[in-house]
């Protein structure tokens, strides 16, 4: 599926991204933010690249909520910009990488509508960072019925929704089947659009396949922790993983419990750099300790390939990931401080 002709404007796009990278906050900024209170963090962000969003939402929100909305909006506009200045095949890859935000927004709109949240509430919860424009998303929100919204979504070829899913949503208010379908499609298409013949793209493909690994392992771990039987686990597994193909995952799902999976993970390259997290998990038995470690290790992988091919899709994806990490870190500090988490806990959550 080639929407745009040509290979893409690698030189231009990489130069733009390089310029933007220099605006990312440095690591020591986080340690400075750790000693600020929430108001100081707000004022500090008002002097950075988040200035515009901080003043735009300053009237409506305050405290950690203001910080969260501002950084999330900044993420959305950054991603839209990146998508806008890429062309050709490069744009196809970036667009498919950003599809996760379309999925997030579609989910939020349907969830909001099903639970009868107000339109304003839903709009404030959107992150227009994907291929669907904010205008389109707002039209969806404004539609009066689930039938009309899903009718419109059915016309989006990339989503490949089925009538059965639509019926589940409209008639039963059952969202899970459609949500899981959307999350799977995301990876199918992304892996599909990356050509494994070129070196940089093969690296990206491997990285995305590791992301599939992480996603699958998280699903497996959490379902296993709740003792959900193996036959109900299978439907949530996504094919195409790097280290863990479907067969390997099924074996894991069949045999044993969480502890056997954790034992298996110890052998995985995903945990090469996160032994301490495994130790912590043994002590606190929190599934999130484990899954946060998996996410971190994935981000670590993306740093490895960032500089191999300076004129490729890799630095662009790396920038998008770094921007996301930055936004996450700022939010972790702001929210963590507001809810009184200890500095130690906050630091463990941060991605450096």
């Amino acid at each position, binding site marked *: 599926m080639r929407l745009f002709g040509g290979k893409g404007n690698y030189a231009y796009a990489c130069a733009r991204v390089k310029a933007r990278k220099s605006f990312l906050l440095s690591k020591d900024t986080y340690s400075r933010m750790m000693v600020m209170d929430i108001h100081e963090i707000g004022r500090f962000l008002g002097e950075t690249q988040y200035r515009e969003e901080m003043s735009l939402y300053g009237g409506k929100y305050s405290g950690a*909520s203001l910080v969260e909305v501002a950084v999330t909006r900044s993420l959305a506009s950054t991603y839209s910009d990146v998508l806008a200045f890429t062309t050709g095949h490069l744009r196809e890859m970036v667009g498919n990488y950003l599809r996760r935000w379309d999925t997030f927004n579609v989910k939020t709109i349907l969830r909001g509508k099903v*639970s009868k949240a107000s339109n304003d509430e839903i709009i404030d919860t959107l992150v227009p960072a994907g291929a669907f424009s904010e205008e389109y998303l707002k039209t969806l929100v404004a539609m009066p019925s689930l039938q009309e919204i899903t009718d419109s979504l059915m016309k989006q070829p990339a989503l490949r929704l089925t009538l059965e899913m639509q019926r589940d949503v409209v008639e039963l208010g059952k969202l899970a089947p459609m949500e899981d379908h959307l999350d799977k499609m995301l990876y199918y298409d992304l892996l599909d659009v990356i050509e494994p013949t070129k070196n940089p793209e093969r690296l990206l493909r491997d990285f995305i396949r590791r992301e599939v690994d992480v996603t699958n392992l998280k699903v497996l771990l959490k379902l296993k922790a709740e003792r959900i039987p193996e036959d109900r686990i299978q439907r949530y597994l996504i094919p195409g993983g790097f280290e863990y193909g479907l067969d390997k995952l099924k074996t894991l799902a069949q045999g044993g419990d969480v502890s056997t999976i954790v034992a298996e993970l110890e052998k995985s390259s995903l945990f090469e750099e996160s032994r301490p997290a495994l130790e912590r998990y043994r002590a606190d038995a929190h599934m999130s300790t484990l899954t946060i470690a998996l996410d971190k290790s994935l981000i670590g992988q993306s740093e490895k390939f960032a500089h191999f091919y300076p004129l490729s899709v890799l630095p662009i994806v790396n920038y998008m990931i770094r921007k996301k990490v930055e936004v996450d870190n700022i939010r972790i500090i702001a929210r963590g401080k*507001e*809810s009184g988490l200890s500095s130690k806990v906050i630091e463990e959550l941060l991605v450096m």
Partner: protein
Amino acid sequence: MEIAVVGSEEFVVGFRLAGIRKVYGVEPDKLQETILQLLEEKSVGILAVHSKDIERLPQPLRDRMMASVDPVVIPVGEEEGDMRDKIRRAMGIDLYKTK
């Protein structure tokens, strides 16, 4: 009947995840008003309020909340709340002491 939860946005946000629909995240100045409203509401069977918030309410309202049975008001928090006081008054001794 339903369960209702009232308090700061920070206090109530998690209750939404337990599937509760009548969740009211309000600013401190709207707290009293919202509680009075919920005490009158027919469809509310249980009203969960942050125990820290209860401490800040005027005594007559606190007494009314403690006496209310439909809805029954349950303080949620790390403190024990008003029940202890009520028992002390009725029985003449502090039965509610935790060891």
